[in-house]
């Protein structure tokens, strides 16, 4: 799709006029979001948009991936990302671009009325329309990836907070797994457990799976690898909280649990670890 | 898929194997890999660099950042002009202490990395390329 070169000069000549029309439209729009962004900021961005659009259309190519469009894409990317972070919806962001159509159409109509080539200007308007559609959609794409990045970061933070490793006793650690454990989450938890074993020189680590509704093969494998890694380091893992249903599933999956001690409850696991470390628990006689 | 060259190192002497390991740690850190991933990368690199040096007579190690859509990764290539491997399948089999396979550590390196590619021609040499996604 080619754009006529006259569009570029038109944008440059009438930039200020376009800017004030557009800024007015943006200010009175229902999607204005004055709570999230200042008029001044909007005006600055609008001015840059027109300037860069004029520059980009100078050579007449409409290949948005090309180098002519790098600067404008850069601006839209920044605008989109900063507004995404501020809390704008994708429609609100795209409206920034789409709302330019009306002032541009007004300008082209006036140019036609002033004795310009109406046919050519009509074609220009149509092409500009298509172009602005694509630019508006581009802001939506940038918005998507910005949101995905935020979500990924939040998930990571939640992972780290949600399964704390606790110290039950000198040299005995425990980590209660709660909720559905997917492969990635299990891996993160197991790595921090092993790191804690190293830091605290814990001889025993109890992994309690009472709060895990189902254990699939991947999760079972992670548990086994963790037990093997702990053994390599010189510590021992005890898995507790294996319910009858999980025991059946594990057997059906064909996963063997060789050399890993298992106990029905975390209390049993704790008692075992204490015994192995040479402790005895006794109750005082009542006075 | 685009790739950016990070570093290209020669693998001629025993000291080079160590240099390559240290470089691998740096590349992994620079690309933002966590500690466990760094360790996997350095270990895989150690296996493959040793192979290229001991069995392949030396060669080159090339590190690149590779991008596929949204993902970026560390891609490392080991090239030697050594005798080449006649039986790739046998070479890939693990041989730690059992006498099977050739103890080349190829299987191990494959398990530690996300992508693994090996090309070898008897009399010409061997090229191994591994990638780990960030």
């Amino acid at each position, binding site marked *: 799709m080619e754009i006529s070169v006259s569009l570029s000069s038109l944008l440059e000549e009438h930039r200020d006029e376009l800017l004030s029309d557009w800024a007015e439209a943006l200010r009175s729009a229902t999607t204005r979001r004055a709570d999230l962004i200042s008029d001044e900021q909007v005006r600055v961005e609008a001015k840059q948009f027109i300037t860069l659009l004029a520059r980009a259309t100078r050579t007449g190519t409409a290949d948005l991936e090309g180098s002519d469009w790098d600067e404008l894409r850069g601006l839209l990317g920044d605008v989109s990302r900063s507004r995404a972070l501020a809390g704008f919806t994708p429609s609100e962001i795209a409206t920034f671009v789409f709302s330019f159509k009306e002032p541009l159409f007004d300008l082209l109509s006036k140019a036609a009325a002033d004795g310009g080539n109406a046919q050519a200007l009509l074609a220009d308007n149509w092409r500009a329309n298509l172009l602005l559609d694509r630019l508006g959609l581009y802001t939506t794409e940038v918005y998507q990836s910005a949101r995905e990045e935020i979500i990924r970061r939040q998930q990571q933070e939640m992972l780290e907070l949600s399964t704390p490793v606790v110290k039950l006793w000198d040299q005995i650690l425990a980590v209660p797994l709660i909720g559905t454990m997917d492969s990635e989450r299990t891996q993160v938890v197991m790595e921090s457990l092993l790191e804690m074993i190293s830091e605290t*020189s*814990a001889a025993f680590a109890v992994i309690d799976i009472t709060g895990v509704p189902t254990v699939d093969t991947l999760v079972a494998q992670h548990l086994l690898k963790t037990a093997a890694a702990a053994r390599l380091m010189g510590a021992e893992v005890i898995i507790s909280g294996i319910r009858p249903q999980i025991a059946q599933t594990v057997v059906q999956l064909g996963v063997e649990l060789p050399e890993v001690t298992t106990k029905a409850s975390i209390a049993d696991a704790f008692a075992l670890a204490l015994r192995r470390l040479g402790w005895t628990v006794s109750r005082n006689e009542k006075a | 898929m685009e790739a950016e060259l990070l570093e290209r190192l020669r693998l001629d002497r025993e000291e080079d194997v160590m240099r390559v390991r240290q470089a691998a740690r740096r590349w992994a850190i620079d690309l933002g890999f966590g500690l466990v991933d760094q360790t996997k990368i350095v270990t895989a690199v150690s296996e493959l660099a040793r192979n290229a040096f001991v069995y392949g007579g030396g060669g080159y190690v090339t590190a690149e950042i590779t991008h596929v859509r949204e993902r970026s990764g560390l891609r490392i290539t080991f090239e030697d002009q050594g005798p080449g491997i006649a039986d790739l399948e046998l070479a890939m089999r693990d041989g730690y202490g059992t006498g099977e396979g050739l103890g080349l550590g190829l299987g191990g390196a494959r398990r530690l990395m996300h992508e693994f590619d090996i090309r070898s021609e008897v009399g010409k040499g061997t090229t191994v390329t591994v990638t780990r996604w960030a």
Partner: protein
Amino acid sequence: MNRIPVLRMGRFLLVTVQMDLDDSTAAQLEEDLTTGIVKHRAEGVLIDISGLDFVDSFIGRTLVGIASSSRLLGAETVVVGMRSAVAITLIELGIAMNGVRTALNVERGMELLSGLVGGGRPGDGG
């Protein structure tokens, strides 16, 4: 190639491995330990690998080899201080490291060795 010093602590030999263990240093270590076991009539060997930020198949085989040759010479071996990232990687790598006893740190390693080795050889003063 660097030479790793072998220290004598009573009836045990203690070795601390720093980072960047190259192949020839590892081979030399195995030789020095076997010589040391015989020379000092050592009953145990403690290898501290807390300084290693990775262990590949060659280093793994070296540790297994040291444990085997030491046992033939009548000494037990304990490897201590393996980092968690290293342990995780070794499991992924699939190296068994069978026959190598491990402990979390030097202190536990010494306790383990004492337990394994018992109360001295016959013919010693006690």
